[in-house]
């Protein structure tokens, strides 16, 4: 069933599906409704890290070295924990400077250097082409395996066939066409490809699903789970070492080196830089992607070892390459559907890598290799062409084809040689050479162009000598004694025991010597002389990328340029329509200042960044310089401007701080003012009530005094009666004033409270004793029911006495003369002590029971014609009781007397807080 037409059709339909996804993604992006603008898609696109090297190769590696395949995924996991800082800074720099590739990044950091960008491009292309060859090999290898289904026939390694009959040649061509359509449909000033990212994320899902499915099939279909497989291993001593130890050939040093290398690769491989930095839609996505991506790596690796062991057990004694276990295990079980799914998964892994990698490399080749050469050699010819955007696209498309053909060529030449097997790590070691220049450049201002050139060159040469050339020698392209005897027969120069260093695997060996040379040269040469003006400028833009710098870049340009010249220049590379739109948008943003003839520094900066997106920052610099009369700035001037900028920053921070403090102070003042106004209103209310209340006694005092004055012949008895009334009214007046002041104090929170633990019984007894004369005068009887040994309460003794006196004197007032009875009871309840004062007076109507606690309210005084109290006693009493955490209320019915009760909580550990609080 799995014949050639079926396989080819499935593959082509799948590629068509990918293209549909990409087309849809592009369309949605044009409509402004991006489908890739979420952290999950972003994390999935980062999973382009997992190529066929992961999909097929991990199992092959595990079959040889046990868990030795893992450090390549542990490194990225660790680096992503720092991704929050490193990637965020890279994304900011890239967006601010319209950087489109890793070569552009390094070139831009060190003063927009053509030479540096070119060197990075060459290292990247040389390092990556074998890696692309690996993908071609994997895809063509799996196709030929499928074609022999259901037999499992390893591809013949010795057979040579013509290019025309070689399937991988056509695969390379199809991929090239596919990549061209994906990546270079039009020229974008930011080099972002939403459709491509959507397709890559889709492929990442497919390869994960395919791998996990086959893993589950092998582990639970062919065997009874993990434990079963490992039990089988126990009977094969030659396999046991795979699962019990760090591989001997690698050791802990090799393990550690792989973690470092892969951690650097996940940042600096051109395809990773493309998806993680250049294609980043929103830097907030970095957060979730920082753990989703490692989770993806974890998931895709869970079943690697079971598949490897299962394959080794199943094909024991047969000539089946462990690299193919993922495909051959389902084939051996005649699982057609699963086999096809695995094939599609592998195809996803291969095509995803090839597409993104070649797009990234083609941008680098175009912007940092071909354009600089054209600008130098054919500047005159370029002048004549009005629209160069077509030329740029053609260069990129050409670069894609050339890169893929180079990959194919390498695959043809290397065949099954050693060079292909180890190539993944050789590529990783190549891109690791970028690390000192990039990380140093992002955090250290002192790095110079010369230093970066020296470091990269030294690291690259050592990498070539200790890793690339030996791999050629092992493939038979170089004499084998190059390895054993060293260059010129010098033992010290043996490439994999350089200067006699032994005891390391080749990767660690290369990592050590190349980073020593790289970092040493970078630091050493950078320290030889201070940075030039252009380097210092770029260093500031990069190192301070996370600070709010403001337009420092524009401040560092001085010269004259015509707007029309700039417009024409940008138009030649981006096309006139898009240039017009971009310039118009820029003018709008700045409030319509686009009409001037002469361009200011900001417009020049803007034009240069537009160009940088299309042709790289170094070329953009050269082009802008060609239409503007620029005054070069000296290092002193640059430093001066940068100092000023940083001083401005400090001032503005200071200003912000001051303004924050002012805002806080204003708020406090407003609060205080509001409180004051409220207090003022309270005071006004009290004043108006009090004035009214004061008028009554004053009026009577005045009336009686006038009577006494006007009638000198008044009887003595009348005189005494009036004088008595005057005295009692005066007393009432005094009481009123005292209580008003007291209440105002309590309400404003300024009353003095002397809280202490006291025995409520004593307070009650003292109060009753103080009022005994009143009761006697009224002929009333007081009954006390005061148990001993009650718990203490926390309150102010004098205030409580005041409450008790008030309640008792109230009761006296309303007692019937001669037959009055007052019953005072003290009881212990769960919540505290309760005191009740019950009388047998006329009682209080239900509707009046709430009113009596309001200020200046006296109700139904049936006994005397005019008010005898102040109307403040009960309100004050209630506030005092509430202040100590208790409550005061009345229970009564007309004709049945009234019972006033109040409670106070016990003095316990929680009580002091209640006292400290201020319920007023």
């Amino acid at each position, binding site marked *: 069933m799995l014949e050639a037409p079926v396989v080819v059709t499935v593959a082509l339909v799948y590629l068509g599906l990918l293209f549909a996804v990409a087309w849809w993604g592009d369309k949605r992006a044009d409509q402004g409704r991006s489908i890739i603008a979420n952290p999950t898609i972003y994390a999935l696109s980062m999973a382009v890290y997992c190529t066929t090297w992961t999909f097929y190769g991990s199992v092959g590696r595990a079959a040889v070295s046990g868990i030795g395949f893992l450090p390549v995924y*542990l490194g990225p996991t660790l680096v992503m924990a*720092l991704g929050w800082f490193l990637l965020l800074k890279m994304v900011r720099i890239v967006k601010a400077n319209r950087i489109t590739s890793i070569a552009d990044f390094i070139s831009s950091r060190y003063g927009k250097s053509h030479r540096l960008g070119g060197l990075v491009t060459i290292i990247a292309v040389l390092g990556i082409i074998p890696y692309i060859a690996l993908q071609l090999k994997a895809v063509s290898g799996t196709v030929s395996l499928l074609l022999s289904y259901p037999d499992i026939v390893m591809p013949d390694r010795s057979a040579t066939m013509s290019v025309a009959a070689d399937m991988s040649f056509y695969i390379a061509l199809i991929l090239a066409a596919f990549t061209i359509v994906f990546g270079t449909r039009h020229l974008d000033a930011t080099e972002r490809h939403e459709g491509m990212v959507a397709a890559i994320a889709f492929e990442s899902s497919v390869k994960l699903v395919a791998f996990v499915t086959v893993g589950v099939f092998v582990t639970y279909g062919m065997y009874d789970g993990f434990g079963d497989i490992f*039990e089988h291993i126990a009977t094969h001593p030659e396999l046991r070492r795979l699962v019990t130890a760090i591989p001997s050939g690698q050791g*802990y040093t090799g*393990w550690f080196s792989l*973690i470092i290398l892969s951690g650097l690769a996940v940042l600096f491989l051109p395809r990773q830089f493309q998806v993680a930095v250049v294609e980043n839609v929103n830097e907030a996505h970095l957060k*979730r992607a920082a753990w989703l991506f*490692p989770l993806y790596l974890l998931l895709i690796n869970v079943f690697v070892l079971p598949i490897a062991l299962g394959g080794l057990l199943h094909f024991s004694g047969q000539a089946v390459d462990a690299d193919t276990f993922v495909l051959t295990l389902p084939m051996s079980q005649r699982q057609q559907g699963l086999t096809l799914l695995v094939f599609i998964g592998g195809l996803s892994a291969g095509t995803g890598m090839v597409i993104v990698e070649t797009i990234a490399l083609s941008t680098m080749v175009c912007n940092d290799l071909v354009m600089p050469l054209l600008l130098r050699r054919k500047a005159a010819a370029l002048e004549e062409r009005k629209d160069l955007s077509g030329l740029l696209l053609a260069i990129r498309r050409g670069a894609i084809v050339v890169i893929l053909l180079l990959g194919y060529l390498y695959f043809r030449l290397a065949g099954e040689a050693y060079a292909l097997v180890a190539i993944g790590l050789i590529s990783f070691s190549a891109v690791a050479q970028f690390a000192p220049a990039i990380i140093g450049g992002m955090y250290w201002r002192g790095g110079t162009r010369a230093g970066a050139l020296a470091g990269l060159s030294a690291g690259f040469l050592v990498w070539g000598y200790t890793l690339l050339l030996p791999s050629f020698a092992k493939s038979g392209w170089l004499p084998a004694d190059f390895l054993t005897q060293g260059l010129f027969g010098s033992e010290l120069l043996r490439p994999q025991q350089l200067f006699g260093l032994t005891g390391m695997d080749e990767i660690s060996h290369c990592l050590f010597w190349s980073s020593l040379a790289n970092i040493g040269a970078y630091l050493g040469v950078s320290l030889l002389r201070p940075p030039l003006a252009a380097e210092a400028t770029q260093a500031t833009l990069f190192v301070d990328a996370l600070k709010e710098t403001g337009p420092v870049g524009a401040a560092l340009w001085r010269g004259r340029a015509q707007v029309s010249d700039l417009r024409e220049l940008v138009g030649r590379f981006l096309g006139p329509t898009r240039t017009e739109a971009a310039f118009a948008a820029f003018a709008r943003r700045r409030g319509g200042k686009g009409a001037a003839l002469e361009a200011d520094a900001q417009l020049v900066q803007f034009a240069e960044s537009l160009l940088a997106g299309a042709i790289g920052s170094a070329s953009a610099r050269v082009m802008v310089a060609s239409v503007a009369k620029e005054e070069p700035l000296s290092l002193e001037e640059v430093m001066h401007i940068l100092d000023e900028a940083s001083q401005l920053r400090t001032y503005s921070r200071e200003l912000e701080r001051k303004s924050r403090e002012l805002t806080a102070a204003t708020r406090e003042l407003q609060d205080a003012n509001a409180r004051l106004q409220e207090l003022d209103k309270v005071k006004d209310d009290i004043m108006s009530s009090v004035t009214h209340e004061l008028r009554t006694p004053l009026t009577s005092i005045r009336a009686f005094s006038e009577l006494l004055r006007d009638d000198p012949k008044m009887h003595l008895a009348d005189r005494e009666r009036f004088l008595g009334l005057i005295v009692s009214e005066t007393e009432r007046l005094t009481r009123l004033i005292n209580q008003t002041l007291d209440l105002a104090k309590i309400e404003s929170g300024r009353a003095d409270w002397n809280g202490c633990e006291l025995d409520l019984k004593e307070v009650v007894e003292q109060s009753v004793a103080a009022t005994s004369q009143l009761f006697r005068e009224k002929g009333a009887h007081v009954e006390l029911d005061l148990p001993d040994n009650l718990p203490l309460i926390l309150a102010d003794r004098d205030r409580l006495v005041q409450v008790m006196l008030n309640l008792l004197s109230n009761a006296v007032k309303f007692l019937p003369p001669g037959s009055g009875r007052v019953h005072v009871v003290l009881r212990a309840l769960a919540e505290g002590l309760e005191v009740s004062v019950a009388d047998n007076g006329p009682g209080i109507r239900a509707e009046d029971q709430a009113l009596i606690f309001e200020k200046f309210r006296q109700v139904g005084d049936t006994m005397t014609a005019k008010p005898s109290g102040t109307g403040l006693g009960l309100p004050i009493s209630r506030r005092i009781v509430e202040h100590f955490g208790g409550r005061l209320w009345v229970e009564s019915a007309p004709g049945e007397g009234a019972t006033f009760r109040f409670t106070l909580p016990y003095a316990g550990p929680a009580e002091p807080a209640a006292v400290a609080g201020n319920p007023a």
Partner: protein
Amino acid sequence: MQRRILAGDRLIATFLIGCVLFNYPLLSLFDRPLALFGVPLIYAYVFAAWALVVGLMAWAIERRIS
């Protein structure tokens, strides 16, 4: 602001924890011919440590600090 700083510090701590867990000498403690529920010790250890690091990262990033 405070929240960002704390989350960042947690991520750096996770990085350091991962560096220690994934390397010599801690790694060598589990490098012996034993099995945990049928799964070889070193294999179980590396995956458990890996899951722990990913979990810590998710916690540091996703958790709202009140």
